[in-house]
């Protein structure tokens, strides 16, 4: 019974992990069709910001929930203004440029922090579930992810800003005719996506520990989650994260975590072949 509880909690945590790491990408890729291969590095920098701030004596919650998104959002702003905005509509070039960007960011972080692992202890201690020791911080991550998801959904669905953003992605000409500057909308959306990635990195930092190369670990999972999700950003990402998270953890328990990752990637290939437009390209088309 306790063991079942452990498995369920681990599955929930995996789903939350996938949602959290792909939320920023869901905004940037899912809505703007910009393939940001530097996404993992955005997450990684969010983590580094948190750890560096904590080491400088700043409260950890302030560091992860406020500073990390601010710093990465600012980096996103610079990146959008200097690189991405010249490449809208040139998908392959965007992929190449952002891949270059990811290398550049890894190089910079290595230059500043050195090529050694850094970490901070999790601020919430573990608890006992029957005979199993569980991480309390995992519960915090699940809760924060739920909160982020609800806020994203509410903003996109019910606010004027969300409406304009969704409109600009579907028809920039129409939005421009109505008096909004699509360039500005793109810029703000990109920055929002980057900030979300930073937030994810900040929240995950105490759990994982960081290397400059850590970003690479997020990118593949985040991508397949968003792409499999399809056109409806939030519903799709939620569905695919739930699906992949469950598969990943079940295989991990049955075999080992590496096999869990591999099972997830192989399934993603099959999914892409069967539904090139993602889950929400075929089902739940009217959702957000």
């Amino acid at each position: 019974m306790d063991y079942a509880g452990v498995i369920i909690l681990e599955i929930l945590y995996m789903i939350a992990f996938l949602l959290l790491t792909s939320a920023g990408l869901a905004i940037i890729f899912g809505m703007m069709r910009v393939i940001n291969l530097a996404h993992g590095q955005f997450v990684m920098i969010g983590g580094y910001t948190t750890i560096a701030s904590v080491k400088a004596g700043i409260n950890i919650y302030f560091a992860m929930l406020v500073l990390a998104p601010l710093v990465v959002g600012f980096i996103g702003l610079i990146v959008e203004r200097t690189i991405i905005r010249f490449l809208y509509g040139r998908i392959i070039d965007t992929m190449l440029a952002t891949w270059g960007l990811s290398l550049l960011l890894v190089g910079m972080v290595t230059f500043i922090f050195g090529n050694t692992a850094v970490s901070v202890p999790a601020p919430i201690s573990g608890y006992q579930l029957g005979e199993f020791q569980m991480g309390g911080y995992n519960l915090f991550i699940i809760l924060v992810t739920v909160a982020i998801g609800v806020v994203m959904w509410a903003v996109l669905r019910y606010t004027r800003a969300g409406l304009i953003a969704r409109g600009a992605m579907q028809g920039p000409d129409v939005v421009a005719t109505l008096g909004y500057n699509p360039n500005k909308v793109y810029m703000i959306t990109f920055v929002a996506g980057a900030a979300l990635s930073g937030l994810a990195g900040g929240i995950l930092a105490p759990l994982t520990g960081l290397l400059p190369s850590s970003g690479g670990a997020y990118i593949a999972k985040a991508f397949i989650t968003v792409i499999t999700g399809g056109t409806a950003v939030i519903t799709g990402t939620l569905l695919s994260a739930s699906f992949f998270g469950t598969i990943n953890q079940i295989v991990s328990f049955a075999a080992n975590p590496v096999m869990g990752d591999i099972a997830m990637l192989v399934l993603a290939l099959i999914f892409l072949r069967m539904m090139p437009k993602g889950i929400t390209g075929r089902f739940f088309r009217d959702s957000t």
Partner: protein
Amino acid sequence: MMNWPSVDRINWGWFLLAVGIFALLPLVFDTHTATLLIIWALFALSLGIMWGFAGLLSFGHAAYFGLGAYTYAVAVINIGESTLPFLLSLLVPAIVAAIIGGMAFYGRISDVYLGVITLVVTLILFKFMSATAGDIYKIGSARLGGFNGMPGFHTLNVPGYPDISLWGWPTYYISASSLLLSYLVCRWILARTFGRVLIGIRENEERCELLGYNVAAYKTGIFSVSAAMAGLAGCLFANWAEIVTPSVFSLGQAVEVLIWVIVGGLGTLIGPILGAMALGYVKLLLGEQTVIDNSLILGALLIAVVLGLPNGVVPAIRRIWNAARLKLRRRVSEGSTRRTLNASSQVNR
């Protein structure tokens, strides 16, 4: 409309010059370095023909490079004599690419998703090979060895004579002739209908399809050929390094070859070769210093090329060269016209 260089003529003068340069290269560099540069050039060429001429971008071409290396190592440990393993290291990547490419192209997967699929395949291989430590992971008598890789296999030998193994400068000349042969094969492909249809697909896929060409078959075909070439590079790499580790599948390997090709030049064959050798050499030099991180420079370079020279260095140089030659020719022909006119007016007088 871009002015693509003609593809069906080989300038044999330049080719012989290249043969001469490759023959003498070990005098300039040490053989070990020169061999590695040649292998990288071959790897870049394999991606260059697929990306530059058929317009198909494989983000994870390292998968086929690595498969070639692993296939050779596994086969040579089991077989002992190196001729069959050498051939297998071309065949296995080609078959895997045909399966993956066929799956993608017949399913009408777009460019972007092709990039993602190829990348995911590389990641799967990297993860799997890194996790194969222990005795249960072995193929025949070859242990895959997990993260530490597979050391201690026989290098290439003279076909039929397992005892006479080749190492050192023979490996260099095998690699160099593989590169030159592959170049000729690429030229041959491009001069035939197959290559012309590929270029047609790059320019306008829909039109090719409406003209009755089986686009998916052509794409799968070139993907397979390209993978075989990458596998050949991988096999030579295994011989050069004398060990195969999962790092052949790493993201770093995958991105480096992309950078070589795009910096060297898309839509040319010489571009990827020069790009790989020049940037590869720079990388080796940078590896010796520790002030600036290597990836920082590579990343900045990739961004700069995508923003500034989206077709790479060689096409840019060629464009300038052609423009200058055209100008020169115009000036010369103007001069001769004037002279003719003068001559004719003199006759009239």
